[in-house]
């Protein structure tokens, strides 16, 4: 387990450093780390199956303002490597992963608290036009801090964890394991609720229910849903534009047609 633990520690550091805006959630995604873990442990298909199952929990999760409701990086690294070492089925791997995903949220909060220190240092460098100093505050110091903060928990858990976790799971009562699995299924709801509270103006709220029940009743895929969602959004925006233009036009006309008012949206 030494090499996989080393990988988990280093990768958790690297992914937590978040290099590349489009890539940072790829580095963290359980399906992505499944391949290297599978290669190290000599069981690629098994790792991909666990990675896909754990990834399913976090695929829809949105992290507005980088405030992650669950740390899928730690959850994936630990869930896949320990799950694979004890030959766990996907369900058990999810139960191993979920608590670590919750623990990781607090590590991320510590990271963003410490990062403020580097912003203060950058303020000083700005006064003396020290470009390299600002670059260090933007890149190097966050990396070092991530290593100190994130390497130990991931390494130690994977290195010593398999046996401990296996014993621990055997000790827990069934209702508690089921409770963790149920909580895992609800976790994505937190990310959704946050983004709804950000963009959900009262007048457009029904579109949430439209999307929800389209999938609940007709079981269409996410891509199919997008095929409906994009035209709907475009149509509404165009209608809004036309009605606004018409309102402007009609107020200019003396004999404004009263039917214009019916078209008005919002």
């Amino acid at each position, binding site marked *: 387990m030494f090499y996989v633990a080393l990988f988990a520690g280093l990768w958790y550091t690297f992914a937590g450093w978040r290099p*590349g*805006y*489009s*890539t940072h*959630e*790829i580095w963290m995604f359980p399906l992505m780390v*499944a391949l290297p873990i599978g290669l190290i442990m000599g069981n690629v*298909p*098994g790792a991909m*199956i666990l*990675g896909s199952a754990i990834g399913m929990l976090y*695929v*829809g999760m949105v*992290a*507005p303002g980088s405030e992650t*409701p669950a740390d899928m990086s730690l959850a994936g690294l630990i869930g896949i490597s320990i799950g694979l070492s004890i030959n766990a089925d996907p369900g058990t791997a999810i139960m191993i992963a979920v608590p670590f995903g919750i623990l990781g*949220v*607090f590590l991320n909060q510590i990271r*963003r608290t410490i*990062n*403020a220190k580097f912003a203060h240092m950058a303020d000083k460098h*700005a*006064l003396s*036009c020290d*470009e390299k100093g*600002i670059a260090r*505050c933007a*890149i190097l110091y966050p990396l070092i801090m991530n290593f100190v903060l994130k390497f130990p928990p991931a390494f130690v858990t994977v290195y010593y964890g398999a046996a401990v976790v296996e014993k621990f799971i055997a000790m827990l009562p069934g*209702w508690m394991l*089921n*409770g*963790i699995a*149920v*909580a895992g*299924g*609800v976790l994505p*709801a*937190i990310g959704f*609720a*946050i*983004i*709804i*509270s*950000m*963009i*959900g103006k009262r007048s*457009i709220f029904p*579109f949430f229910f439209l*999307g*929800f*029940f*389209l999938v*609940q009743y007709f079981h269409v895929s*996410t*891509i199919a*849903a997008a095929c409906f969602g*994009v035209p*709907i959004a475009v149509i509404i*925006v165009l209608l*809004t534009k036309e009605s606004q233009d018409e309102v402007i036009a009609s107020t200019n006309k003396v004999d404004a047609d009263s039917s214009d008012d019916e078209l008005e949206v919002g």
Partner: protein
Amino acid sequence: MGKMKENTTITKKDIWRTFWRWWWTCEMSNSYERMQSVAYCYAMMPVLRKLYPDNEDYSEALQRHLTFFNTEGIVGSVILGISVAMEEERVESQGKMPGETIIAVKTALMGPVAGIGDTITWGTVKPLIFTLALTASVKGSILGFFLLFLFVPATVIYGWYLMVMGYKVGKTAFASLLESGWINRIITGAGILGLFMIGALSATTVKLQFAGTYMSAGAEKTFQSIADGLVPGMLPLLAIMAIYMFIKKKGHKFGTIIIATLVIAMSLSFIGIV
């Protein structure tokens, strides 16, 4: 302001450099106090150095871009484009464009742009590609690993386009962008698409079911089947709405929400409801 540089024209290459500096680093130094400010300053550095050869002006400009800033990184590129244009405008107009205005504009835009960006990038494009990848690997194939990386070209294309657009708009018709209804319509459209997609996604990814079975006419039936007969997805919907109401009333208290979710799930599991 100090002495001006003769030729200050910003080239496409300068904008390209700013884009990549931002793209690579914008989440690294993210802090609660200042969010992405250090990365913003780091991204603007080459352009600012080119525009302000005088150290006093340069230092002032660096400080301008160390102020609190937080947005979504891809669609947010549009704001960097605007900042570059405004800084250039400041130099070309011999300081008639006040530094405070440059700060005010990026601060005013970051919120609405984050809403649009979170919706498009993280609420729509990411789940589409990532779900595709998960489905490909559900039986153990490595194909899903490679599919994940489609997300990079997909986002970089519109991020770069928006960055150039921000620069052009910033150079020409910046005031009209804010005043016209254009930006409001984009926000409404993105909001509609976002809510629709979040509805669709939560229907597939949020999982919560009644446990337990009962006997009916000699056949074993689950309590969940009764719920499905009434309204499919009733429990996931209730969970999302409950968390949403909590956030509306009490604000973004993640720790509390997560622990409450865990405690409630275990309690319901203990009494055998879920």
